[in-house]
Every structure is written in structure tokens, then in C-alpha cells.
């Protein structure tokens, strides 16, 4: 487990006076399912946005497989093999379920527009191959619908379609931003199983979650963030048992002095 796929060092992002991500170091080993927990506003999604190029970091580096990706555009980072899903599902309106997944194969499709104009046989073969592969991926994530518009599907199914779309980009690393938000226990377990099967197929997964159960049951390791900083790191159980983490989540008064950001917070009369 020493082979690091993603290495984040000294990553920093400020928005005006707020430092959303403050000097974060993180290592995600290849083939791991890494959890990322933290209270609301801890900077988890900001971190995901930095790694995927949606935000440009102010300082620090992000290495994928030893190569710097910080500062690249989202599409370049995607082609290097990092992809993501979204906290609020973002499917593409107007595409049916199969097409959502085929849309993820943009980078790997080779046929030019010219060849699709003249119905070149290779282009037609490629189209069929894409549809077949999309079909397989959808079966793998447990979606039975194919020709329905994705926006008409139930929420849980939409999340699965989004994961299939992410897998269609042939990623090395998938960042799942709260994949079980708004799901019941049963659906969450199914997502957990899906994450494990992704790992078994060779993907490395970083799961941003509020759902502690999911992290405890399915992640190999975890990081806990609070106020933009890494608070704790270890196995999920170690993280949950860490007093600093309990402080951050439950705000035990006596111990809160250990966190500089919380000290400042206490002197802020607007916060409860």
C-alpha cells in the first residue's frame, strides 16, 4: 500500500478572507478506497474541485502517479485519469441513460466528425461499441433503464448513472462527492458495494461522505477535514475514535482549544 496514486502537498485555496483549503497534505494509495469526512464547510468539496481542476490552487501541488496536475484545466485532468461525481447529481439534460454514459467516452472515441458524416463503417462500429460498453457499465452499476431520459429517473438511479458515466472515462481515480446523499440505508449499502466492486476492477476511489457508516464499512483509510485542514488520518475507526474528530463534530467545549479555527469561532458572536 505504499504506492501512492494521488499525492497532495501543501494545497491552499483562499476565497477572499476565507481559506477553504488550508495547507492540506494527503496521500491516496493506488487501489484504495479512501474516505474523506468532515463537518459542513470543512473544505471537502473544495478539495475535490481543486484536484479536478475546477478551482486553481493558490499554492501546493497535486501529483497523479508522480506527475503534476495542479493548474491544468478540468478536461486535461480528466484525460490524465481523474474523474468525479457531484454532490447534487449533474446529468446532462436531453440525453437518455445510454447516451449519458456514452458522453463519458469522448476522450477515448477516435472517429472524426468527417467519418460520421459519410457513415464510415469504422465510425458506425465505434458507435455500436460505445453503446455496448455503456450497456455493460450500466449493468455493472445496477441500472436497468436504457432509453428513458435520465432526468425522469429516480434520484438513486441518477446517482448510479452518474457513476457509470464517470467510469466511462476510464479513470484511474474516481472522486465521489457524497454519493449517498439523500439515500436510505438500503440504497447506501448498495452504493458501498458498488464502490468495492469499482476498487476490485482496478479503480482508486476517494469518497467524500457525511455518512459515517459508509466510511466505516467500506473505506480502507480515511481523512477527516475541518476548517480547511486535515484533522485526522488513519483507518476509519481510528478517525472516528480520535478526540479531535469528536471535537470537530460534536464540539466538546473543554477540548476545543486544540483547534485554532474553533478558538476564533468562539469569539465570533454570530455563531451559536
Amino acid at each position, binding site marked *: 500500500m505504499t504506492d501512492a496514486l494521488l499525492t497532495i502537498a501543501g494545497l491552499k485555496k483562499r476565497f477572499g478572507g476565507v481559506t477553504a483549503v488550508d495547507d492540506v497534505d494527503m496521500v491516496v494509495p493506488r487501489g484504495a478506497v479512501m474516505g474523506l469526512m468532515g463537518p459542513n464547510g470543512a473544505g471537502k468539496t473544495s478539495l475535490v474541485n481543486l484536484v*479536478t*481542476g*475546477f478551482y486553481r490552487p493558490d499554492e501546493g501541488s497535486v501529483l497523479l502517479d508522480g506527475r503534476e496536475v495542479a493548474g491544468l*484545466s*478540468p*478536461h486535461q485532468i*480528466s*484525460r490524465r485519469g481523474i*474523474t*468525479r461525481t*457531484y454532490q447534487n447529481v*449533474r446529468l*446532462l*439534460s*436531453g*440525453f*437518455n441513460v*445510454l*447516451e449519458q454514459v*456514452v*458522453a*463519458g467516452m*469522448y*476522450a477515448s*472515441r477516435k*472517429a*472524426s*466528425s468527417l467519418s*460520421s*458524416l459519410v*457513415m464510415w463503417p469504422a*465510425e458506425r462500429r465505434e*458507435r455500436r461499441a460505445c*453503446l455496448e460498453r455503456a450497456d455493460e457499465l450500466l449493468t455493472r452499476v445496477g441500472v*436497468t*433503464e*436504457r*432509453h428513458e*431520459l435520465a432526468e425522469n429517473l429516480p434520484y438513486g438511479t441518477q446517482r448510479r448513472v452518474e457513476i457509470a*458515466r464517470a467510469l466511462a*472515462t476510464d479513470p484511474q481515480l474516481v472522486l465521489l462527492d457524497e454519493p449517498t446523499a439523500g439515500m436510505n440505508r438500503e440504497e447506501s449499502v448498495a452504493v458501498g458495494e458498488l464502490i468495492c466492486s469499482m476498487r476490485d476492477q482496478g479503480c482508486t476511489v476517494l469518497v467524500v461522505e457525511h455518512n459515517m457508516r459508509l466510511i466505516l464499512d467500506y473505506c480502507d483509510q480515511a481523512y477527516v477535514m475541518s476548517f480547511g485542514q486535515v484533522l485526522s488520518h488513519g483507518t476509519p475507526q481510528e478517525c472516528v475514535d480520535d478526540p479531535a474528530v469528536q471535537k470537530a463534530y460534536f464540539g466538546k467545549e473543554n477540548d476545543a482549544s486544540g483547534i485554532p479555527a474553533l478558538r476564533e469561532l468562539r469569539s465570533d458572536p454570530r455563531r451559536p
Partner: protein
Amino acid sequence: MGGFWDQYRSVVEFAMANALFALGSWIAMWAGVFSMAGATFGAVGGFSAAYLDLHMGAGIVVQLLVGAGLGLGVAALLSVLLLKLESHWMAMATVALVLITRVVVLSAEEYTGGSVGTGVTRRVDLVTVIALVALVCYALARLRRSRYGMAAHAVREDAAVAAALGVNPFTVRAVAFAASGLVAGVAGVVLANLLQYIGPDTFFITLAFTMVAAMVLGGTYHWAGPIVGAIVFVGLPEVVRSYVDGVDELMTGALLVLIMVFMPRGLIDPRRQWFRRRASQPVAQEPAPQPEVVR
């Protein structure tokens, strides 16, 4: 039928010319670029056709090729400049572009005839125009679910998501904008030939508005939208005019408002059920296994 044809032949011709312009706008819209610049590219095509006709006696094929090439070239150059702007600023910039076009046409007297305008020998017939529309439709139908077509739609719906799937939104938009310039350039050649006279006001705000209105009215989510829109937009006032005089523009305006209120996605909407049922049929596949529902 003969009487009808004589009466409406020119209406059909102009509807098809406008359909070409509307298709041009639609191609930009495909990748999420709301552009009125079709009037500018139309002017490039139209005045190049007039020049070729007047000075070299060039035939329609040469005119169309030159018009398409120049439209494509000018649009490609402008795309580098304009596509840095955000959506509605981009739309405003294309309006400004149309205003500038008129000034350029007025001052480049040597090539455009300035404020007097210039005459054009008519070298197109209805069949040619319809063939051109059909050609564009064929290309768009083929590209709809191609690698590029899906990327364009994705960029329009959510550029950030598209980027995370490996699509470079800037490139996709630039290609769409350049292609819209090509089609608008062709449309300009056609319009110049149909009108047989073009001046500084030919390719101005009215034309820019017409092509965008036809696109919105017909629907911006399928390539058939702008054609239907152009036919309604050009045809309806003519039909109305033959019964009641002087209310045609009022009717068009009211129609546009009604359609925008009640059919905000336009007349042709691929999301509508009847359209989808037919659209999904050619993909012959096993029916998806239905999840068992126990109630």
C-alpha cells in the same frame, strides 16, 4: 396547385434562405453559444458573391464555395476573440458585431457599393436552395450523436461537467461558431441571389433578429427546429397578408410571445414523448428487463 405555386414560390425560397440562416444560429446554439453574428457572416457571403458575380461572372458553385470559406474563416478568427466572453455578454458582443458590419459595408464602397448597394445576377433556383438546406440537415442528423455532437450538447447543458468528461469546452464552442459561420456564409450567398440586390441594410438587425427568432420559435434542441421556425416565421405573415392587410407583423410578434410562454422549448422539442418514441426505435435492442414491482 399551379396557382398556389406561382403565388408562393418566392415565399418558399425566402423561407429556405432564412432556414439556412436559422440553422447557422442553431449550430452555434448547439454548443450553447447564443449568437446573432449570422448576419455578419451572411454579409461576408453575400457581398463576396456580389463581387464575384459583378467582376468575374462567377457561377453559383464558386460563389457558394467562396461564401462558405470566407464565412468559416471570419467566424474562426472572431471565435478566438469572442468566445472568451460569458454567455449573455457573448450575445451582446454578436449584436455589436452586426452593428459594426453595417459600418464596414458602408465604408468598404469599393467592394460593397457603399450606401447604394450592389446588384446581383440571380443564379440560384429553388431546387438548389432546398438541396443546400437538405445537405445541412443531413450533416447535422449524422453528427447529432457523433463524438462531436454529443460533446457539443454536453457543453451546452453543463460546460463544467463536459470538461470533467474530457471535453475542452472552448474548442467545442469555437468549432460550432466557425461551422455556424460557414452555413451563414452560404445563406448570405443564397439571399443575395434571391434578392438580386443587397445593400447595407440587407444583413442588419432585422435579419439577425429573424434568424434567432426562427430558431427560438422552432426549437433550439433539435436541428429540425430552425427549419420549422423559419417556415412559420416567413410563411405565416404571407398567408395572413393575403387575407387581412397590415397585421402580419403584429401576428408574428404575438405568435412568438405565445410560443415562448406556452412552449418555451420551441415547436420541435426532442424531449416530448411522441418525438422520443420514434427517435428511440432505430436503436434495435433487447427491451430492458423491467424491474419487478410488487405492490
